[in-house]
């Protein structure tokens, strides 16, 4: 028998009892819809978080402070509802809550296995008085920092990434600054804006003319932060600290570094840092909580999807068992006329697979339609995602869709094997017996 004929027959057999087939497919549809929808939401949220993670530092990024600062911070902040006791005052350690990282510690950090010595930089907070442009009289406050080291991609709406080692001054701006400074998201690229630092004593202004190379997409992690390249950061810091004594100028409270995340675990790196009195956070520590929160919710939804699918699988077994029962004589006849047990098995298995296939296809189609409507609705003016044009709440990828289909078809096939085995083992003589 030709495989095409078996497939055709399997589909035709499903149409014999349309209501029963419809209800079975409906059950699979519910499971497939739940799973593909939660996958799509998970993918959408993860895409968003990942782009945010990248804008903050990406994989391998370490934010390093002294252990003392970290402990103090936990006590001061109560660590977000964890009810840590307030930190006790210790005159030998710290007075203000932040204790500096010593030069000795800095050198040791550079020697830790797995940390890229060249990537270790001191995090300096920059103080900029205002930003202005040639297009407008208005002046605006602005907060900027040097982009941390590493292979970082800020989520951009327009333009390109910073060249960290460039000799000219470069900046990435949010689009609201583009608008405020008299430009649009697109035409501000390659234009110069003026970052002005006002001398606290002389009131003299020093202007740093920076080229806008890109416009940052709105996000949650980088919100309110503009990024500048190293050259610009160094020069602004030098201007900020020109009256400071050398000892204060060279004080460092925070380091940023990159570690080889493919070869080393974050825990090993953190342990090495703890030994020299430093504490580090990876991007996963910082972002992890948001991700865990979403993951838990979506996993629960996905679980419901699987439960629905399990019920659907039992539906498939039930449907096909009834079908085998009804078609006992037909199966016997087929076998008497020379059909092999293997073909009978295949024919029923294909019916199960067809049920799974149609159920998953309908589930996916309906989910994609609803998902796109939801995305459109949330991006409409005034909706809560209107500020995040790059964020799709629901995101479908071909591999996701195919793997959900494959999963459902495999489950359907496995469910079908029981009735299919029963059918294959039927004795042809049963068909020849008189009623």
């Amino acid at each position, binding site marked *: *028998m*030709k495989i095409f*004929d078996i497939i055709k027959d399997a589909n035709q057999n499903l149409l*014999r009892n349309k209501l029963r087939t419809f209800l079975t497919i409906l059950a699979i549809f519910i499971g497939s819809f739940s799973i593909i929808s939660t996958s799509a939401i998970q993918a959408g949220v993860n895409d968003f978080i990942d782009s945010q993670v990248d804008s903050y530092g990406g994989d391998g990024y370490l934010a390093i402070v002294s252990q003392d600062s970290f402990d103090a911070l936990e006590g001061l902040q109560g660590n977000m509802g964890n009810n840590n006791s307030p930190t006790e005052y210790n005159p030998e350690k710290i007075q203000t809550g932040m204790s500096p990282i010593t030069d000795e510690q800095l050198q040791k950090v550079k020697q830790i296995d797995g940390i890229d010595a060249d990537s270790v930089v001191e995090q300096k907070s920059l103080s900029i008085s205002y930003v202005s442009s040639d297009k407008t009289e208005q002046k605006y406050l602005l907060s900027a920092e040097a982009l941390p080291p590493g292979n970082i991609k800020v989520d951009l709406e327009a333009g390109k990434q910073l060249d960290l080692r460039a000799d000219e001054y470069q900046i990435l701006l949010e689009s609201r600054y583009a608008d405020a400074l008299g430009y649009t998201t697109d035409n501000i690229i390659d234009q110069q804006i003026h970052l002005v630092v006002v001398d606290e004593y002389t009131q003299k202004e020093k202007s740093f003319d920076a080229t806008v190379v890109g416009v940052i997409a709105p996000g949650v992690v980088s919100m309110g932060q503009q990024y500048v390249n190293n050259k610009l950061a160094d020069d602004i810091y030098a201007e900020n600290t020109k009256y400071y004594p050398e000892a204060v100028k060279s004080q460092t409270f925070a380091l940023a570094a990159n570690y080889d995340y493919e070869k080393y675990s974050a825990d090993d790196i953190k342990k090495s840092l703890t030994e020299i009195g430093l504490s580090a956070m990876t991007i996963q520590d910082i972002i992890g909580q948001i991700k865990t929160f979403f993951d838990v919710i979506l996993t629960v939804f996905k679980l419901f999807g699987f439960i629905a699918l399990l019920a659907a699988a039992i539906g498939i077994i039930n449907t096909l068992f009834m079908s085998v029962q009804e078609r006992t*004589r*037909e199966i*016997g*006849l*087929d*076998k*008497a*006329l*020379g*059909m*092999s*047990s293997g*073909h009978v098995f295949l024919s029923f298995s294909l019916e199960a697979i067809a049920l799974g296939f149609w159920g998953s296809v309908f589930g996916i189609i309906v989910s994609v339609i609803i998902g796109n409507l939801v995305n459109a609705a949330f991006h409409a003016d005034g909706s809560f995602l209107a500020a995040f044009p790059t964020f799709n709440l629901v995101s479908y990828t071909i591999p996701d869709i195919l793997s959900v289909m494959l999963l459902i078809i495999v489950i359907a096939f496995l469910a079908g094997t029981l009735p299919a085995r029963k059918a294959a083992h039927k*004795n*042809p*003589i049963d*068909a*020849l017996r*008189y*009623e």
Partner: protein
Amino acid sequence: MSKNVILSTRGLRKTYGRGDSRFEALRGINLEIIEGESVAIIGKSGSGKSTLMHLLALLDKPTKGNIALDGENTSKLRQSKLNKLRNKKFGFVFQSFFMNANDSVLNNVMLPLKIAGLGARARRRKAMHALRIVGLDDKAKNKANDLSGGQKQRVCIARAIVNDPEIIFADEPTGNLDSATGEKIINILFRLNREKGITLIIVTHDPELAAKCDRQIRISDGHLASEPSKTPPTQLPPTYYEHNSGDTDADGMLDIMEEQA
């Protein structure tokens, strides 16, 4: 006319169940069936005649003994080979027709060809030819369920001959039909036997039908109750089929067969 032995059995036994519920359906059957002859297997209910037919048709395996088809012992053949043999060499006609009631007549007739893996066009051509032989080519598109009992049995015969079989096994082919319609069916079967040389093996209660066969094999309590008659197939009266010429349908059918012969 060749006299090859097409089917033969030696010491054929079939036992069902074990221990106390053990039941011997066949207790050592030796017989030979000659190519082209028509044989009636007769006997009371429970005598084992259906069991014998199932074994001869290779639908079941004997407990002991063996069956040779065209001189080849079938007990050693693999299941897939047996399936192929049944598909290519045998045709089946059943008392209760066994058709896929909601399928078209044509699809029912094409079933053995579909199982054999023939292409759609060849299937259609051969099935239409078979339907023409039984005089139902105009009903090809009808639903099988919409036919009368006699027409259904003719569709079954078309299905049985669609693959050009060597042997047709008919299990009470007239059992569900009134006598006039039954007569028509029998005419078709014997016509095929005579003109195409298809061997007929008919299980029946009907003494009249049995008498029309070249010989009768009587089964009683699992034994062969009578010696096979020595009448060779060639000595059948040639006018045999003209006894039942009252039926216009059958006449039409015969005309078609003559045209094709």
